[in-house]
């Protein structure tokens, strides 16, 4: 037993009052003439023993009543006795990840979590401190009524959230409350993929609710991807359905369904298309709704345009010309002047695939042409000798002659291939620059099997149309700001200027990136596929995973409510102390009343 307000124990001196009354009661000022005083003296003499016992009993009852009141004022608490709970800092952590929107017994699991969270808030006293922490790590604190409103407004997020951060923040706020009793009340479905790695939560007690029922079977679209990102205008959509049986799917672009089919469990299906849409468009792959509807649709984005018209400069050599003829034969490119494939010394405009000049004498002219075209790179020192090229799709590629690619001020580019530590191919807005002439005596790249596919990808994905990309991210993620965009379109079509970072919405969907008035790319926000796997930890497995010695696990709502606050704190003895005082006063009244009745 300990006291939260021990100074009030000083009031215990008040027990002297009934003691003094008892001892000093014979000092009576009222004097009454009473001729039968002798009878009174005799009565007292003959009943002195009974009177002394009764007076002593009354004195003891009064002292005990006073002591009980004093103890109550000192706010005693004990771990195993008492009623209610001592002031407790409680962080209610609700797992509102996507999986919590699964419908169980006719209603979303999150609704049950919210009701149980409201139970906890209702059990709080004014001395408690409360916070609501959601699985994405957001923390709200305040009065019970405020938190109740926050709980009512809570919606499932489109992803898995960040359980480790949420737990860490919950532990931090309860630790900073300055109260001895600290508890994190966690409501979760116990999804295995979610509670993989957990932080330490210090000495706060963890009260954990996890349902004991098995999760509902779930079907989900776990892959929806445009391949390639730029369709000219042909392309494919790759999709995969998580399911225990065959599932029908529907693929749409800008809301128009263009393909339907049936996919076997976990089979990657490829849907080929040459749609009439043009520009940056949003697409979806959907299946029939089930208990977890949020993952029954998955988003993708693609750029669709006509096959680029390519002009090949004679100066780049016969190998590129032959490769372009192959691409033209497969209708991936056409003849025209949209994109130039050209030696650096002949460069006049962008977009262009630029090679180093075959003749070293033309190096100066090439660098001047690069400067005029606004390409922030220059050809540097000429290097000879066989060297291996490294980069995706460059296996076995070597160079015999190459020039250093020297970045100029403000150069922002993606390095596609390197030789040693030097860039060999770089790509920037509307240009791809190669550090060697594409002739067999300079590099074996033009004669490698990977050359034509690489050339086709460069022309139809990097240089076609406006520069831009498709970014993939989880809901609520924060990405570095893409320098080729200055705003993001919301789902309602409004444009939000980008800041230093690209803060993504919490809802899944396709969000277009714009530059000026034009769409230049998109961010596709989808939940992580692992969130669709609803396998759960059992309650005991979850307890073992949390690194705290004080973990209470339950799958019962009544136990949850009864254990909230109480489990973490010692219970208050105020009520028992006051009841004891009341009992003493009642007994005193009975003793006095019995004496009065006998006298009557």
């Amino acid at each position: 037993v300990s006291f939260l307000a021990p100074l009030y124990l000083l009031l215990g001196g008040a027990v002297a009052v009934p003691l003094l009354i008892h001892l000093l009661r014979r000092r009576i000022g009222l004097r009454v003439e009473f001729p039968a005083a002798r009878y009174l003296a005799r009565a007292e003499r003959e009943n002195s023993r009974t009177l002394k016992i009764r007076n002593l009993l009354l004195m003891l009852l009064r002292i005990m009543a006073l002591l009980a009141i004093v103890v109550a004022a000192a706010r005693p608490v004990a771990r195993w006795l008492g009623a209610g709970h001592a002031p407790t800092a409680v962080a209610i952590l609700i797992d509102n990840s996507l999986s919590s929107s699964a419908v169980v017994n006719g209603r979303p699991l999150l609704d049950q979590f919210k009701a149980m969270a409201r139970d906890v808030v209702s059990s709080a006293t004014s001395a408690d401190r409360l916070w609501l922490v959601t699985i994405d790590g957001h923390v709200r604190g305040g009065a019970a009524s405020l938190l109740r409103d926050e709980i009512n407004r809570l919606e499932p997020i489109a992803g898995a959230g960040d359980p480790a951060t949420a737990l860490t923040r919950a532990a931090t706020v309860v630790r900073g409350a300055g109260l001895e009793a600290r508890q994190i009340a966690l409501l979760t479905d116990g999804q295995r993929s979610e509670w993989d790695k957990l932080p330490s939560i210090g000495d706060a007690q963890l009260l954990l609710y996890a349902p004991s029922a098995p999760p509902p079977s779930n079907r989900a679209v776990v892959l929806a991807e445009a391949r390639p990102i730029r369709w000219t205008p042909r392309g494919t959509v790759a999709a995969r359905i998580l399911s225990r049986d065959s599932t029908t799917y529907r693929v749409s672009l800008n809301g128009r369904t263009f393909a339907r089919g049936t996919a076997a469990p976990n089979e990657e299906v490829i849907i080929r298309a040459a749609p009439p849409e043009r520009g940056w468009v949003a697409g979806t792959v959907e299946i029939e709704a089930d208990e977890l509807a949020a993952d029954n649709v998955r988003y993708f984005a693609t750029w669709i345009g006509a096959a680029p018209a390519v002009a090949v400069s004679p100066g780049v050599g016969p190998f590129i010309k032959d490769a372009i003829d192959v691409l033209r034969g497969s209708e991936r490119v056409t003849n025209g002047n949209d994109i130039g494939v050209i030696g650096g010394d002949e460069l006049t405009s962008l977009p262009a695939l630029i090679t180093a000049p075959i003749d070293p004498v033309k190096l100066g002219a090439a660098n001047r042409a690069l400067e005029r075209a606004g390409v922030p790179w220059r050809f540097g020192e000429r290097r000879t000798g066989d060297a291996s090229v490294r980069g995706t799709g460059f296996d076995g590629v070597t160079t015999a002659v190459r020039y250093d690619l020297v970045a100029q001020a403000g150069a922002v580019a993606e390095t596609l291939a390197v030789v040693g530590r030097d860039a060999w191919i770089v790509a920037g807005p509307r240009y791809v620059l190669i550090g060697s002439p594409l002739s067999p005596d300079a590099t074996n790249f033009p004669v490698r099997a990977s050359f034509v596919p690489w050339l086709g990808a460069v022309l139809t994905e990097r240089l076609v149309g406006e520069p831009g990309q498709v970014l993939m991210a989880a809901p609520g993620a924060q990405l570095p700001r893409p320098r080729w965009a200055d705003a993001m379109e919301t789902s309602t079509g409004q444009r939000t200027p980008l800041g230093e970072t690209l803060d993504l919405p919490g809802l899944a969907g396709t969000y277009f990136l714009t530059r000026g008035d034009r769409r230049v790319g998109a961010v596709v926000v989808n939940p992580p596929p692992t969130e669709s796997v609803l396998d759960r930890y059992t309650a005991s497995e979850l307890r073992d995973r949390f690194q705290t010695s004080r973990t209470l696990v339950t799958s019962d709502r009544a136990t949850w409510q009864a254990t909230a606050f109480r489990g973490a704190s010692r219970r208050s003895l105020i009520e028992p102390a006051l009841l004891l005082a009341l009992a003493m006063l009642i007994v005193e009244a009975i003793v006095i009343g019995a004496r009065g009745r006998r006298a009557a």
Partner: protein
Amino acid sequence: MDLPDVERAMRGLRAAGHDVTVLHIMDPAERDLPSSGEALFVDPESELAVAASMADVRVAYKTTVDEVIGEWRSMFGSLGIGYEIVSTDAPFGVPLRRAFALRQLLP
């Protein structure tokens, strides 16, 4: 007055051939203590002072008074002396008539 002193005097009177009837005049407050409170009760004749709480001793006091009256009645009865309580809050004729009617029955 102490009972032995009174008994000795009464025996003398009876030995001298007197018929004696004792009228014990009592105030109701002497039969039943005042209503409540604590006080120092002082006998103005003997200066005997007793501090008491009415509630504490009321029952015991009434019992004691009844015992004392019984002692008086027993002692006077053994001497052939009539004994009657005369309460000051009632007409005294009634107890007098009863006392002397009883007196007629005594030897």
